[in-house]
């Protein structure tokens, strides 16, 4: 019985398709040519230019600040939301669930537009603060989603056992539920962090003339067609950093798993 090779061929093709632009971009970051359309020799010129760009470093700082605050706040709010949705079944939770789901399905532009209109109507000045509010909102939904999935697999008899052994509901939550949910909450927080760092559209709509985040700065650089190859250098660096972070995280995770097994 011959197994069709088509799926594997398509998969390989897709892999090439997915990586080609990125690899070209990394290659081009070392291209001394200005427009990267033709190779003109190896150069670290663009990385040097990158290091000189204070505005990029500033925008990176802003992005990190917003992402840090958003992930922490959304971990708290998202976990609270997931706990309520898991525990109770009522009309209130039906409405609650609907509102939690909206940021997950609504296109970015509508999220950005609607929040902008809210801030305008209420008279709040657009700034890093409004951006943070916006980020917390969609991060909340993602954290809630991840924690809810974790709660679905949670053994409720553990809670009963803790109560049986004399723990109050609060003690049970702190000593049993929270430690067991922690990996899910942290995973949600990590997801929130990456989503916040990566966000462009929503940020663009609600940031006003205020400070730039990395994506908005990159976008305006592209639009102004200034120093474009520097972006290649920036992207390559970001790729390396992300890879390194994930590799380290995996190593730590594997070490933890091995420790439990011993």
């Amino acid at each position: 019985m011959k197994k069709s090779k088509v799926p594997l061929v398509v998969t390989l093709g897709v892999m090439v398709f997915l990586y080609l632009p990125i690899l070209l971009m990394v290659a081009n970051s070392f291209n001394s040519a200005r427009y990267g359309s033709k190779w003109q020799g190896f150069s670290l010129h663009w990385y040097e230019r990158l290091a000189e760009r204070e505005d990029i470093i500033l925008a990176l700082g802003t992005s990190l600040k917003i992402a840090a605050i958003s992930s922490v706040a959304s971990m708290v709010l998202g976990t609270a939301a997931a706990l309520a949705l898991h525990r109770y079944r009522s009309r209130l939770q039906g409405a609650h669930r609907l509102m939690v789901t909206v940021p997950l399905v609504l296109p970015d532009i509508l999220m950005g537009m609607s929040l902008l209109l809210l801030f305008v109507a209420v008279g709040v000045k657009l700034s890093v603060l409004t951006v943070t509010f916006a980020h917390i909102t969609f991060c909340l939904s993602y954290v809630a989603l991840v924690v809810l999935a974790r709660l679905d697999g949670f053994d409720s008899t553990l809670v009963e056992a803790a109560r049986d052994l004399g723990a109050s509901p609060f003690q049970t939550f702190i000593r049993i539920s929270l430690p067991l949910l922690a990996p899910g909450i942290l995973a949600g927080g990590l997801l929130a962090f990456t989503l916040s760092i990566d966000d462009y559209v929503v940020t663009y709509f609600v940031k006003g003339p205020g400070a730039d985040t990395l994506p908005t700065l990159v976008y305006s650089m592209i639009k102004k067609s200034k120093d474009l190859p520097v972006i290649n250098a920036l992207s390559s660096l970001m790729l390396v950093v992300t890879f390194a972070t994930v590799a380290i995280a995996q190593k730590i995770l594997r070490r933890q798993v091995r420790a439990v097994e011993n």
Partner: protein
Amino acid sequence: MKRLRELLGTAPSFLWLTAFVLLPVIMIFAIAFKPTLPGGEVGEGWSLDAVKALLDPSYPILLWRTVWVSAVVTALCVAVSLPVAYAMARLSSAWRSRVLLLVIVPFWTNFVIRVFAWQQVLHAQGWLADGLRSIGFLGENDRLLGNAFAVVLVSVYTYLPFGILPLFAAAEKFDFALLDAARDLGAKAFRTFTSVFIPGIRQGIITAIVVIFIPMLGSYVVPDMVGGADSQMIGNKIAQRNFSDRNLPQAAALSAALTLLVMVPMALKRKGERA
């Protein structure tokens, strides 16, 4: 007593979401009915100007193009993702996680930067364009960038992982023994693929369609960066009304229209789930 505990537990996220999700969406529909002032501010009282502006003759084409491009991108993504999901689900566990990782890694680069990368690849004087012209695939005056082709290509690039992941998740749960049974009964490879595999992962396909189609309807960055004047989508119009024309009510009216448009596939999905 239990009711009180529920209220207290739900309050933090509920209040936040009411303020930052419910109210904003209401605002879209509210400000659509407000007048606009010359300076770009929103005026007092109510007005139907912004809503009437929706009757502009250029809008139906815009709407049609948005839906059409979104549908094409969705169809292409799903069509390509199907064999990929199939291949991945049949791999050994070790290879499966490696390929999964490989699919997700491009995601880690910033979205804007990924589109920028394509901008360079599709550049009119770039190596790709030159190469295609030299073998006759591309006319002298044709461009790879600034048109609907680029929008579709880059959108497919962006949303491909959104197609692969849900389909792969569904394919993992699929009982592949069914395919062997079908082959045993005489069906050829392609036939088993279309009449056994595809219906078998129906839920994953529906998820993939929804997860690609709905965000595509609100596309803004991709048509803005690699599209041209004739490949504008509703998202671009909204941004234009908002940032260039400084006409918030009209931007709101367009957003309201897009919101209603987005609700259609969502409602269909709900119906499909209940069936």
